[in-house]
């Protein structure tokens, strides 16, 4: 092993040689691809695995070994076909079942998922490190944070890191907040506590229909069907999306929903509470930035939420305005156009959002810098009502709350 600063070069043994690059995902326990990887979402779906819900697609997967079913070859091949496979797999010991899946996928589809044996990978690589695989050589670039971070697998921070690549450490953020003049915000999940609102609206329905399901499972099911509805019907107003979501949830959970129940759920947005820190944080930030909303909602529903947030936004872009739902790029294009009219160039815009899926992926595609308000940090695995990002994404800054973003701004101002 050779090491130079944050760059480490390792020599492995290629079971299936190829070239790949991606952010590392270090698994804490062996994984059977069958029953463990959902090839349609690219996420880890083994309920016994400590990293349930983590995104595998596109990651360089570091794992001790395969486990369990001999059907894992098929699942890996199918994931390669669907584009949801890991970019490469680094194993502590050879695993023929994974090799066969990757080998057959290469024969059938001409796409490689390199598999290497590299016993020291779990020690040398941390989740989030950037890894390049070329033949039997592996180059690891760890950010300061990845190299310095505790390797204790029980470390909560480590767990919270599993669903994204890297973020600068909290004590010394790489991002100068003073360099921006406008903040664009996602609303639901970032400023409005939509999960609490959704659960408050769904629980009476679930109880009435004897649907027995935990909160996290219910939110995950919501996230899944909501994103499908939004993609399928981009011009439907949000209350209608929500009403349809309840019908889909009922089908998925083996229950029913009356049209009254569906309409009531569609109408519940106005009751969703704000996070306790949102109004104060916006009041403070409004003194330093132009504030813009880019939200997957309709104008009427947003008016109720705006009352809870207390500030007047410089611009509000809803799905009704955009004619689409995020992660479509429409909201951002519209917001940037409106900000340009106010004299704000896109490099002065910082997007602030909780959802990697809805916000960070499309915003970064348009070249925006992003702040991840990771409201779900410390709430265990899984993304709640937010689906996982389909591709690796690296926010420029991570904060757990809006209040933390304000604190950081204050500290930077004081320097």
């Amino acid at each position, binding site marked *: 092993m050779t090491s130079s600063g944050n760059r480490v070069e390792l020599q492995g043994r290629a079971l299936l040689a190829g070239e790949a690059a991606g952010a590392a995902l270090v698994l804490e326990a062996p994984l059977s691809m069958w*029953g*463990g990887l959902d090839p349609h979402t690219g996420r880890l779906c083994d309920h016994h695995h400590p990293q349930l819900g983590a995104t595998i697609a596109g990651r360089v997967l570091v794992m001790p070994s395969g486990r369990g079913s001999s059907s894992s070859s*098929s699942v890996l091949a199918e994931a390669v076909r669907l584009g949801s496979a890991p970019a490469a797999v680094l194993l502590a010991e050879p695993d023929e079942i994974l090799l066969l899946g990757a*080998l057959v996928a290469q024969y059938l589809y001409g796409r490689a998922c390199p598999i290497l044996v590299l016993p020291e990978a779990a020690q040398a690589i941390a989740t989030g490190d950037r890894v390049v695989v070329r033949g039997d050589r592996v180059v690891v670039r760890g950010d300061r944070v990845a190299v310095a971070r505790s390797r204790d697998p029980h470390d909560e921070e480590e767990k919270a890191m599993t669903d994204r690549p890297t973020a600068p450490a909290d004590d010394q953020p790489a991002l100068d907040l003073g360099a921006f003049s406008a903040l664009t915000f996602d609303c639901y999940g970032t400023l409005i506590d939509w999960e609490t609102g959704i659960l408050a609206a769904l629980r009476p329905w679930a109880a009435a229909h004897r649907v027995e399901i935990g909160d996290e499972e219910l939110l995950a099911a919501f996230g899944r069907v909501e994103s499908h509805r939004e993609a399928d019907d981009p011009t439907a107003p949000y209350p209608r999306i929500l009403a349809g979501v309840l019908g889909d949830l009922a089908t998925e959970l083996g229950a029913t929903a009356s049209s009254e129940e569906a309409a009531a759920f569609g109408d519940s947005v106005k009751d969703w509470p704000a996070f306790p820190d949102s109004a104060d944080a916006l009041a403070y930030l409004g003194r330093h930035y132009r504030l813009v909303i880019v939200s997957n909602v309709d104008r009427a529903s947003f008016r109720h939420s705006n009352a809870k947030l207390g500030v007047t936004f410089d611009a509000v872009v809803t799905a009704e305005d955009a004619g689409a739902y995020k992660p479509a790029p429409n909201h951002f294009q519209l917001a940037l156009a409106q900000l340009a009219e106010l004299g704000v160039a896109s490099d002065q815009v910082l997007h602030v959002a909780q959802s990697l899926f809805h916000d960070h992926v499309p915003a970064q595609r348009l070249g925006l810098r992003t702040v991840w308000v990771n409201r779900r940090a410390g709430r265990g695995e899984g993304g709640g009502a937010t689906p996982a990002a389909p591709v690796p994404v690296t926010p420029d800054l991570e904060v757990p709350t809006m209040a933390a973003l304000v604190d950081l701004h204050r500290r930077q101002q004081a320097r």
Partner: protein
Amino acid sequence: MRLSDRDRGLLAGAEGPAAQLAMRIVAELARVTGADELIDVGSAHVDGCLFHGQAGLDFAERLRDGGGVVRVPTTLNVSSLDLVHPGRYRGDPDTASSARRLMDAYVAMGCRPTWTCAPYQLPERPGFGEHIAWAESNAIVFANSVLGARTARYGDFIDICAAITGRVPYAGLHRTERRRGQVVFDVRGLPARLVAEDVLYPLLGLLIGAEAGSLVPVVDGLPPGVGEDRLKALGAAAASSGEVALVHVAGSTPEAPTLAEALQQHRPRKAVAVTAAMVRAARDQLTSAGPGRHRLAGVNLGAPHLSVAEFGELVALLAGRSIHPEVECYVNTSRHVLARIGTLGWLDALEAAGVRPVVDTCTYITSILEHTTGVVMTSSAKWAWYAPGNLGVRVVFGSVRECVESAVEGRVVGVDELWEPR
């Protein structure tokens, strides 16, 4: 690596494109496993016939269209469809039609339509010391451990390649020294009343699988002559929670007349003293439903497929009673065993009592369950391990007796009796 003339001919395409592709994959596997030669196998068991997506179908049809024909007797694992009871399938019709195409492709290549994960319950079984190429984790561990046949941990794709070429790398568990027991699980500390219960064996398997890693486990301290159904449950669970492909049970399995022989006269790398608390923890791990009262939606038995003897036990436990009308009770088995219990008169009795037999597939891998809300009970560690992820159901694990009593009563009953301190 030494190749035979025929191997080289296959690689050169002498027996057509399917055999050529199959031989390339076998040779690639040999390279990776470090084998220096290939050996003949006497039979194959193919797992690739279970539909997991288009990739598996693309591969099977590529081989079939390339003239692929199996060279050794080849059985087929469970599929996604119960062809005997087609009305039980509740999944998407497109998936069903792809699953059917996949089944047809394997049969077209000469595989026997056995559709069972328990090929060791069919009349022709591999002999002691025979090299075979079996896929399906529970079948692998049974063949190696209980039959003393020799198969590596084969999976989808390589299974049919081995069947078409009749060849596998001489590596892994084909080699005597790789079959040496390495980690000893001493169960002498378990209470006798627990050792006497069927429910111990899947739980023991579960904790062994989690603990053994890639080492070959040996169970020591059980009374000799543990029966096949208990060994089946132990092995299937160990292969679910871990990568166990061979487990010796001293005094019961053929390569382990004694502990010393299981260890091939070596010292073990590790020894684990199994306690009742560890078994209890394994049991708790299998119950994914939280505490409190739950509606019992279903009971599922037979993963791996139920044997004739296990059906006999089920008939005795039901004792003329009926399944509660709000509980769907499925029993998974093979066509072969179904025919046997038909001639014994048990099938009619079970169906009259409300038991729904499922063949050719299994209720945790395809859409059969009517109700996935409420909780589902099972006595199978493998079912309990995989069903929450596959079907989104919550599971209560219990003994066969507890499952049957619950199915009759229509609520979860008796699951704690064995575990309360006396």
